[in-house]
């Protein structure tokens, strides 16, 4: 099992999410983060004084998949997140030791992504 962690532009997320869902990878998390890199600071002008904002907002995308699926996930993320300009972000792949589905207590790779079985509606009741 691997965790793919990607720091991406906000606008790249929605096409990535749609393609991953299509490919059978609905389970992922995002976090609003701020970070610095080679992208320049933004200068805010406020009533005659300036303030340099060095940390830029990015999305942190986390997605745990079976090791064999990492290549596909990477390809989807790179396809949508790359604009060619400084500030596109970075992607990391980390090893994962265990996975547990909290609702049932099931363990292992079968809890990771889409699987045969019930669909669940928005309010949590089984459809």
């Amino acid at each position: 099992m691997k965790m793919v962690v990607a720091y991406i532009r906000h606008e790249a997320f929605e096409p990535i999410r749609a393609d991953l869902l299509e490919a059978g990878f609905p389970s992922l998390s995002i976090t609003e983060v701020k970070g610095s890199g080679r992208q320049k600071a933004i200068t805010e002008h406020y009533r005659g004084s300036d303030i340099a904002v060095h940390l830029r907002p990015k999305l942190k995308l986390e997605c745990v998949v079976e090791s064999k699926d990492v290549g596909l996930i990477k390809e989807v993320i790179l396809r949508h997140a790359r604009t060619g300009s400084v500030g596109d972000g970075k992607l990391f792949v980390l090893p994962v030791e265990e996975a547990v589905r909290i609702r049932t207590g099931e363990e292992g790779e079968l809890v990771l992504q889409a699987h045969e079985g019930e669909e669940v509606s928005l309010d949590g009741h089984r459809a």
Partner: protein
Amino acid sequence: MRRIALAAAVPLGAFLLAPAAALAQDGPTLDDTVSSLNTVWVIVAAVLVMFMQAGFAFLEIGFSRAKNAGLGVVKILTNFSIAAIAYWAVGFALAFGGAGEIAGTNGFFLDVSSLPAEAASQFPLLDIAGISPAALLFFQFVFCAVSLAIVWGTTLERIKFSAYVIYAIVFSALIYPVISHWIFGGGWLQVNVGMQDFAGSTVVHLIGATGGLAALLLLGPRRGKYGPDGKPRAIPGHSMPLVGLGVLILWLGWFGFNPGSTLGALGNRFAEVALVTNLAAAAGVLAALGVMYMRTKTYDVGMAGNGAIAGLVAITAPSGYVEFWAAPIIGAVAGVIVVYGVILIEKVLDDPVGALSAHGLAGIWGTLSCGIFTAPRLAEFNGVGEGGLWYTGSFTQLADQALGVAVAFACVFAVSYAVFYAIRATIGLRVTPEEEEAGLDISETGMYGYPEQFIPPSELIGPGLPAGGRVAEPAPAGVTAAVTGEAPA
């Protein structure tokens, strides 16, 4: 000071009322009707000025960081309420209770005769305005409250709440009433010097900003305002939309502030004053926006707002004294002054809302502008001073204006500095660095203005409720004892 053209209005009123008077001999007299009409306008204007409290609240809250947003609400309510009671009890009598050179002495707690003639001898302004004494008090009080609200703009995000309470009492019972007596209430600056200040560029705005300067000098800047190199850093306020709402509410309120200072509706002078006011405000916005664009190539939201306020502040003194054409000039100069004022003052003093520039410098400019642009016919109409430099070629009126500005500034600064010095020496003027860092909302009011921004959702839900508000189902088969923490049944 504000002599309403009652004589001109009477024939119209008489024409309208003649049939009614003929039918009901014991009905209201013409004087009663005129008085009621003027009283209605004064109360409407006073209500508009009262709403400026909302403008100051939103302006200051928008220019503050989110951690200080809630305090602005309770601050405005407290100051307004203290002033309401102190001005009724003491302030109004000092300001308008007689034509003494220094202060009035009649009518504490609005103890006023029910006979109009006697009331007018107690409060000479009633003789000119012919309105209800309660209306006059209420109208003058909301001016006092505006002036007090201006004081605190310089002190945002670091002053102790207790300082508001003490200074508000001194300000609304003593400082504002005495100065307003000198310039509005028949005191020495108005009568002996002939200083022109129609609605209070000096009396309301410069006084408020002067109190703010005294507080700021003893208070010091917010933490982090100046970098290690001593250069000012921007501490952006949390909501420019709230700033905009505040500015527009103030702009609206000014249509009570200046046109209401006619103290009556007859003669329709108030409509001309309203137009003059609007022209100056518009010119202030455009000038401030233009100057900032030339400096930074950006359309500065805060400066556009400051430009509007500066234009309004500047036209406050001359609004009853100048012709239409002078208004955009006065407003535009104020818009330029406020931008350079904010930028220069920012180098040494941390004034988060620009009150020293928008109310102080623009107030000085507005008061002086009477000495340049006052039309002789309007000086005569109001019965104060003479025409300005533009018309007369004489510096007399300009010098009178400058004297009034200097006296008002010096007196208010001296008293205010003493009061704030005493507060600092006894109970302290400033919150601790830890409280400032945490924000005045949690340290002074005990609650956040925007709780969800500071309290994580999990903490708001608290313990005791199952996830999603549903009762958890029994653990399904297959769940190990290690997960449930219990031995399988």
